[in-house]
């Protein structure tokens, strides 16, 4: 500080600063100077923790953003995986539902029943639960009546496992049913031959195609040399 400046600042002498006596006390004896002692230095401003705090917060923020992004991206991969799983389950479900519907189709049911030797019943009766009366006369079903026309089974491609057709019997079966599907039964086909003649003419072209396609369908051996046993499907 320059001497000029010194002049500006009043100097507070130690004596008056440390004077314990009240100011109004007149002509008090001058106290002695406070003995010199080491003045404890004022606590230095600790800047280091603040800087550390700043950097710490920065680091935390960066790490948080990083973790967030990583988790979102991981979730995205998981989402894709789950979606793929969902779609494959949907497809399996559709396939199984289709198989069930194929078995439930009325013409397939009727054909399967005929194959098992069942016949439609000719008589019916009723039991009235309120009066417990029975109407109608029970008569055993009689086999042998002409079954009549055969409605062809639905031509849904690839519904039943069709083994490669190489014999003429298989080609015959294909002639009385829709293309690409196993025939309901040989029994009703024979009996309804006259009735099915009309339909057979229209389906002959389809039958040739079906036989050719079936013949070209080589069995998948899955790396082995022996074909898998043929699954027995309705109508075979």
């Amino acid at each position, binding site marked *: 500080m320059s001497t000029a400046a010194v002049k500006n600042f009043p100097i507070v002498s130690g004596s008056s600063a440390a004077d314990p006596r009240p100011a109004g006390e007149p002509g008090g004896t001058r106290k002695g100077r406070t003995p010199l002692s080491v003045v404890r230095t004022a606590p230095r401003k600790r800047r280091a923790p603040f800087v550390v705090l700043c950097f710490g917060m920065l680091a935390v923020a960066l790490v948080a953003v990083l973790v967030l992004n990583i988790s*979102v991206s991981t979730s995205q991969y998981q989402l894709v995986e789950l979606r793929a799983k969902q779609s494959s389950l949907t497809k399996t479900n*559709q396939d199984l539902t289709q198989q069930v519907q194929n078995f439930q*189709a009325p013409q397939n049911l009727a054909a399967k029943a005929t194959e098992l030797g069942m016949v439609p019943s000719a008589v019916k009766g009723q039991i009235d639960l309120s009066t417990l009366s029975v109407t109608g006369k029970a008569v055993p079903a009689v086999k042998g009546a002409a079954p009549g026309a055969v409605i062809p089974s639905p031509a849904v491609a690839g519904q039943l496992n069709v083994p490669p057709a190489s014999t003429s019997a298989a080609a015959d079966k294909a002639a009385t049913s829709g293309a690409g599907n196993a025939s309901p039964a040989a029994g009703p086909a024979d009996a309804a031959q006259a009735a099915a003649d009309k339909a057979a003419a229209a389906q002959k072209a389809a039958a040739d195609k079906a036989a050719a396609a079936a013949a070209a369908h080589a069995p998948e051996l899955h790396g082995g040399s022996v074909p898998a046993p043929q699954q027995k499907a309705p109508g075979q």
Partner: protein
Amino acid sequence: MAETTGKTGNSKAPNATKRLRLGLGLMLTLLLVVGGKLFLVQGLDVGGMAEAALNSRMTSAVLPAERGSILDSRGTVLANSVIRYNIVVDQRVNTKTDSYKRYEPQADGHDKLVDVSRDQAITELAAALGMDTNAVRNAVTGDQPYFIVAKEVKPDVEDRISKLQVPGIVAEGVSKRVYPNGAVAGGVVGFLQDGTTGLAGIEQTQDDQLKGKDGKRVFEIGADGLRIPVGLDELTPPQNGKDVKLTLNSDLQYFAQQAIQSQTDKLSAEWGVIIVMDAKTGNLLALADTNAPDPNNPGLVAAKDRGTRSVTAAYEPGSVEKMITAASVIDEGLASPLDKFTIPPTYTVDGQTFSDAFTHGTEERTLAGIIGYSMNTGTVMAGQRLSKEQRYDWLKKFGIGEAPDIGLPATASGILSPPDQWDGRQQYTVLFGQGVSQSTLQTVRAYQTIANDGVMLQPRLIDSYISPDGTEEKVPAQPSRRVVSDNTAHQVKDILESAVTEGEIKDAGIDGYRVGAKTGTSESPCDDGKPGYCGYTASIVGMAPMDDPRFIVEVVLQRPKGSIYGITNGPVFRSVMSQTLRTYNVQPSTGEPVRLPQYAK
């Protein structure tokens, strides 16, 4: 700080300040440049780089809507869509890749990287597809970027093919329409053209409801093919089509189709039709046609068989129309079921002579007997009590010439010419169903009026629409109308029942139930524009149980071969009606069946 001398202080301070100011100025200039460039790039995007980057990341994918299903009244699926795959190949990629590596699962659980040659890949692909190896090789070789190797492959096959990882082979998802019941209700359900638009039947008329609306997804995709999760993602969800629920009962439909096909084949007729209707609601339970198409493969039947003749084929109905004549004269108060008519062997009126299907002397008949024995002579005698306008009005009231609206294409309205255009003969022949034409559905609707105590309900085929979220909106019934009084309907029902108990149609009777029926044999006009008549149309229509009619069944056979007088559809009617009564658990009739005398005392 020590005070410095004036001069040296003055020179040092400006230097420092000047340097500071210079440095500051430089920094500000650079900052300005950077800021300006930032503003240009970020704010104005002068080079269009942000947009270019967004364009290369952004992809839009169409989310196809699923086509609605067609169901029968009990929820059996008649038509639905399933996922299939087209196996397509980028021929350029495949041709130039002689060998590639792929992971194959080994026995110890780990995957091993294995070299696979192109030949082996082609052989494996051919085995998976069930195609010839050479055909597959031809398909994948070339320079086209897109070539279809196999169409509509099932998902499990597609899964196996994707594991092969053949270079250039991609599976494209497509939707395939499947008809699990095949030819049963085939003509009514219809089929698709190119797998997308309906071409016949319900698929055609309800195409808008079934199609739904495609959705769109706009998203950003990274170079690894994975969607960028924090990027743009706009989704317009697809609206799947609504399901259409019909009133048909598919088991009854099968039974009726099988019955009419057998009868048609047995009598070598051109075609046949059976309709089963619920008299109380107008719901159509079965619309059976011969040679019905299988929508999975409609090309197997002739083009003329791909429709539904039950609603589109109009023909001269013949004697079944006599019911309308009887109802008209009774409602007008001009006759009653037991009125006496003296009928000569042939009847001549206005220079027109009419005879019956059987020869007889002069007979004393009741109106019931005229209908019960289907006498043309008696019908003209009774019907001539109506004026020409009255005959026309009554036919119109019973729905002749008015097409029913059930949601099938080309529904016939029939032909009913105005009375001033009727010639001398036609004015009488319309009384017994010649000189007027109508479809089977119109006849059934007229009989339903009588079964429902004189109130006509319009036939219903589409029961409701089911939205993708499951809410069902029933199609409201069309307005009904009263055609004849309750009393008239009762008397006509008695006449129809007497036709079975006392009249000629005894083979239509069913054990345990009261049945009313009417046969019809009409001459059929030649089809190919030739004048005159060729062959006959044989039909029978009936209702049961007569104490409170629930169902109406009509069986029609067009041009059966052999003597028409030896042909009867009674057994077919009986079997279909029994099956219907049994399916719906109808209680057997109580009380005595009506037996109106056929001969007057």
